[in-house]
């Protein structure tokens, strides 16, 4: 890389690079978090020294769901932490046309870096391209744009990995049980992420020939749908050994249905990482024994990466001069053993 000036290397080694490394490690897997601080502030204070001022434009989702709300919270809190970062935030929206308008406004304001969680990745690709052509690098959060030209860096979760890790966790728990019966309560079936989660789950279960997935129903990521679909699943299956539920929000409803049916013969694994789920796992007084992360802290990491990008720095702990082009967060399994470590990242 002959064009890269040496100042950049110094920046990489001594500058805010370690901050970004913290983001990659703590942000995505949060295995160093302290118990008291909120999720967005639990980074090891490696180097918070102010650098070149950076204005970050953030176009987030409408917070109509616990996880999406946590995304917006994480981004805001992380930005507040840096004296050199100014966050230009648009009102969250689930409407494609509205979000395009909001991003165009941010482009016109000439922000230094854009962080975008698109309502629909495919539909917002064009506006991502527009920003990149205008010289504003885009950090694409979670839902991915159609073209790699539309973003400089993608940060997101691993849906396939969620399924895989949930499947392996259940597989290990049931491996000595002959003819084990497993059911799956999926999320919204018209989302690609739901299909990826199911695919990962099915692939993991293939390693355990004694386990059979006997039923799968799709709910809608809401408490109401979780209760209704789970009640039906329980009526259809008189005895099961394990349940994987894709989402902790709908899990509130699923747990209610389980309670109403008076069933407790199985173990349940959730998904996402809601505070209520962590608390239930810690209390260990119900069927919920673990949950697979889809960490909302990725929004804090996106702010870290945007700051590094705006200051022309790389990521500490890696040899590269620049921030990576993709960051896939790990879908860790949180159970009673390690729940304390993750408690601070739980969202309401």
């Amino acid at each position, binding site marked *: 890389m002959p064009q890269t000036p040496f100042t950049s290397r110094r920046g990489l080694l001594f500058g805010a690079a370690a901050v970004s490394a913290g983001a990659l490690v703590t942000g995505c897997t949060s295995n160093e978090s302290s118990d008291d601080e909120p999720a967005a502030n639990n980074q090891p204070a490696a180097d918070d020294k102010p650098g070149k001022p950076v204005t970050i434009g953030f176009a987030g989702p*409408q*917070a*109509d*769901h*616990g996880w*999406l*709300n946590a995304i917006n919270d994480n981004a805001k809190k992380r930005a507040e932490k840096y004296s050199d970062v100014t966050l230009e935030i648009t009102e969250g929206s689930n409407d494609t046309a509205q979000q395009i308008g909001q991003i165009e406004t941010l482009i016109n304001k000439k922000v230094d870096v854009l962080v975008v969680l698109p309502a629909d990745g495919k539909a917002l690709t064009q506006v991502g391209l527009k920003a990149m052509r205008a010289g504003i690098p885009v950090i694409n959060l979670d839902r991915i744009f159609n073209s790699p030209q539309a973003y400089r860096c993608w940060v997101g979760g691993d849906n396939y990995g969620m399924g895989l890790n949930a499947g392996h966790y259940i597989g290990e728990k049931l491996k000595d049980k002959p003819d084990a019966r497993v059911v799956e309560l999926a999320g919204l*079936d018209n989302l690609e992420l739901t299909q990826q989660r199911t695919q990962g789950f099915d692939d993991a279960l293939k390693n355990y020939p004694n386990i059979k997935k*006997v*039923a*799968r*129903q*799709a709910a*809608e*990521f*809401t*408490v*109401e*749908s*979780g*209760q*209704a*679909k789970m*009640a*039906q*699943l329980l*009526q*259809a299956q*008189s005895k099961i050994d394990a349940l994987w539920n894709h989402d902790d*929000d709908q899990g*509130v*409803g699923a747990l*209610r249905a389980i*309670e*109403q*049916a*008076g069933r407790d013969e199985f173990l349940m694994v959730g998904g996402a990482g809601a505070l*209520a789920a962590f608390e239930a796992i810690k209390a260990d007084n119900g069927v919920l024994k673990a949950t697979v992360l889809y960490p909302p802290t990725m929004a804090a990491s996106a702010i870290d990466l945007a700051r590094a990008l705006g200051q022309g720095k790389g990521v500490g702990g890696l040899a590269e001069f620049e921030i990576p082009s993709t960051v896939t967060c790990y879908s860790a399994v949180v159970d009673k053993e390690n729940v304390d470590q993750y408690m601070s990242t739980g969202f*309401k």
Partner: protein
Amino acid sequence: MTQHASPPRDSTDKVPSAAETPAWRAVLFRADVRTLSLLGVLAVLILIGGITKPDEFLDTRNLQLVLTQASVIGVVTVGMTFVIISGGIDLSVGAIVALASVWATTVATQEYGFGGILFTAVAVGVGCGLVNGVLIAYGGMVPFIATLAMLASARGLALQITDGRTQVVSVDAVLDLGERDSYVLGVPPLVLVFAAVTVIGWLVLNRTTFGRRTVAVGGNAEAARLAGIDVRRQRLYLYLLSGLCCGIAAFLLIVLAGSGQNTNGNLYELDAIAAAIIGGTLLTGGRGTIVGSVLGVLIFTTITNIFALNNLQSDVQQIAKGAIIVAAVLVQRRTASTT
């Protein structure tokens, strides 16, 4: 189902009874044939359920489950039926259920307990219904538009109150209502409420002046006005009634799901309208029965139940649901026209 046995209207009726009585009989007779055909559809569904999954479907617990799941949307549908019979429409029912449920569960985090939650849910429902009613009856707004505006703003307010969070209820007295221990002779309390709302709804529509006025307003509002009915006040009361049903439904949903969420009641408006329509209620007003609407709800819930028991995926469920709506309406029309 025994509607044809209703006595002739007495002379206290403000609608001229000479013109009214024969029409009434014709309406009731047609409704009866429709009811029978709906019962037929339900019987076929029960047969399918019984054949495909005899052990799980023909089980007391499953009957309790189906009726419980029909309760929330069923109560909403009773209110909706009144509104549609009067020639109106209420698109805001789902949003009102959402708003009432999150408002009531906000109260739950404080210390008002069972009464506070019940009162708040019902009060919010009635309040929204009042706004709808005033806008439509006295503001001269088209029901479609007024309730569409309510849909948007009530959902927005529900989102604002919750901030997207799920509000879990920890008041035991409320949660216990959904538990097996509180079943009365095997009937869940939610189902008892649904049954009570149905019976009261039937009595009000078929045995009171209010019911007759509702039909008259839907049949021909101008004629009703000339006959001395205060059409505007009648409309106000009807949207209030729909709001009240939404408030009750919101409370039932809180008991069922143990929480309030701004996504509650999603697409209830369409489910309730669909149930009323396949129950034989005319979308243009003037005709409809509570029994038909409730059977419509039961048909939908039974379909969902059979699909879930047979582990059919949601795409297949939706396609089949659409087909069954069409089939039910076609069967009904045929039966109605041959008599």
